[in-house]
């Protein structure tokens, strides 16, 4: 294929990606360096029969004019990055200086919105991902030995949690685990504690969100592993059997090594998807006890009367950096394996 025809074929797709993925990243960067205009205030003197009073009012017309003239806001440099709502350097160093133990420091850190969100996002990502891989492999091994008649329906049912809209899936679980719902009420009865509820307990909320994440993503790992199992060579398995390998040993030394590239693939996909956890927090209305990086961006843009573009953009930049850090090891691995294959 010539360079020229390559360019013609790739052009529409490339243009879409440059315009709506690469440019927004530039736009996010520019916005993160700016901050909203302060409101224009005017001092007026009201004189009445009891003397004169100074009053300060917001000149909404002048504020609006300033906004429409410079929609980006005023230049703020990297100040938004270091303020309390983001990296909070001053607060962190204060907390470090004043706390006597690591636990104390961490609890102070958890009061800062960015670190709170980061903590949940990382916990979610690094707990859900391994559980999904292990559970997916177990389901795949289990389904693989079912009689043929049951395989199709089992796969059908297994696909449902993955295919359902994340917001809808989390709402469905939320209604069941709600204090009035079937699971919530059952839990209260089991623990004999009428005040037990998802909303009241942060740790319960975290656990619930993580369970939702595993429920939602395990089918993906299951399907990939199940398809991989169909391609494990039967000869090798039989040879292992003849050599006296137990079932466990066959899984450990034949099946698992064969699945290793699939694990890399699932790992890559899961890291990407779990790091942007967002919908479950909206669905479970969990923002009081758990926020994620995506959620605080959403909240900056939607929460107040006016969207806080600068603040949202700064968190976005930090999130993008996080994604890059997270992906680097996997990308290097993919580069090593497929670069040689392709070129």
């Amino acid at each position, binding site marked *: 294929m010539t360079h020229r025809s390559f360019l013609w074929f790739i052009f529409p797709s490339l243009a879409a990606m440059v315009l709506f993925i690469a440019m927004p990243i530039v736009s996010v960067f520019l916005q993160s360096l700016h901050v909203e205009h302060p409101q224009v205030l005017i001092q007026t003197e009201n004189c009445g029969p009891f003397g004169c009073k100074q009053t300060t009012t917001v000149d909404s017309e002048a504020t609006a004019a300033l906004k429409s003239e410079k929609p980006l806001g005023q230049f703020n440099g990297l100040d938004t990055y270091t303020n309390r709502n983001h990296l909070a350097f001053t607060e962190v160093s204060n907390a470090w200086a004043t706390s006597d133990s690591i636990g104390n420091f961490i609890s102070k850190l958890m009061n800062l919105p960015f670190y709170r969100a980061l903590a949940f996002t990382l916990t979610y990502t690094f707990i859900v991902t391994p559980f999904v891989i292990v559970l997916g492999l177990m389901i795949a091994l289990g389904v693989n030995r079912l009689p043929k008649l049951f395989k199709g329906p089992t796969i059908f049912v297994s696909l449902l949690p993955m295919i359902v809209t994340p917001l809808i899936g989390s709402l469905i679980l939320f209604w069941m685990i709600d204090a009035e719902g079937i699971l919530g009420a059952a839990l209260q009865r089991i623990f004999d504690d009428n005040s037990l509820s998802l909303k009241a307990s942060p740790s319960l909320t975290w656990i619930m969100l993580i369970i939702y994440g595993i429920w939602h993503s395990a089918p993906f790992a299951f399907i990939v592993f199940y398809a991989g199992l169909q391609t494990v060579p039967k000869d090798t398995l039989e040879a292992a059997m003849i050599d006296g390998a137990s079932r466990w040993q066959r899984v450990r030394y034949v099946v698992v090594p064969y699945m290793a590239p699939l694990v890399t693939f699932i790992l890559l996909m899961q890291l990407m998807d779990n790091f942007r956890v967002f919908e479950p927090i909206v669905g479970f209305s969990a923002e009081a006890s758990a926020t994620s*990086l995506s959620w605080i961006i959403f909240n900056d*843009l939607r929460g107040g009367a006016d969207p806080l573009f600068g603040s949202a953009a700064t968190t976005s930049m930090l999130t993008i950096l996080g994604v890059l850090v997270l992906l680097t090891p996997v990308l290097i691995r993919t580069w090593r394996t497929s670069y040689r294959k392709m070129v």
Partner: protein
Amino acid sequence: MSKASEKRSPALAICATGFVIAWVVVASMPFLWTLWGSFKVQGDFFSKADWTNAIFGIRTTVETGGPYTGNGYYGAWVEQEFWQAAINSGIVVAATVIISLTLGALGGYALARSGFRYAFWLLMTALVFRAMPHITLVSGYLLPFFEWNLWGHLPTTIIVLVAINQPFTLWMLHSFFLNIPKDMDESAMVDGCTRFQAFWHVIIPVMWPGVITTGLFSFLLAYNDFAVTSMLLSQDNQTMVPRISSFLGTTQVEGNVMFAVAAVVSATAPLFFLVLFFQRQIVSGLTAGAVKG
């Protein structure tokens, strides 16, 4: 795996079967429960006192005269005009799928057929783009869209969803195109076809399974999206998923959670049928990327 080895360990067989049954229950119960409960009144769906109420509909019988009621569906579809959101969803999803596939097929074909080094780098860049959380991109769009008066319209959302879809679509179609032997288009070109004619008349006809599979995933991405549609669409143009989330804000006050429950069931139904008819394609699509590495 041979049958003989399984017979030797009945304990393991019971464990494995029990595990699969447990998984099937965990995967399907929430859906069945919500589907059943959507035909009840709120007092039954959230029946703290006695969970069997939700199954037999005791309160539903008291309040409406029968064990089943369609009040939730009536409220959602007629009173809250959920049909409008359903139409919007239909438009957005159909347009996104068609445009994504067109752009993705052209680009994926080019990437699969060129041995150039930059094709590889393009694929890696697409992978990084695929990892960008959607909400970070949305925060980049919002201000320019407000400024240029593009915010709130369906076409804007469609083109954004297409672009966000592209990295994934490119990767998937690229791996399907790699499975088609190069000889096919090369011999067509020897016979006098241009590159595009070879693509259109020779390759696309044998690519239909790959195109359909990729289309299914584009469908899911557009249909399931919340981050983009909730931020970029105005109230009148909302699609189903953001509409459901805005139900929650308003209906809980009125005590009509059942509207949201009915809307959730309605929005899940198309996905259910999608899996029912296209299970094989979905499974093959999920594994296409994996097997290729």
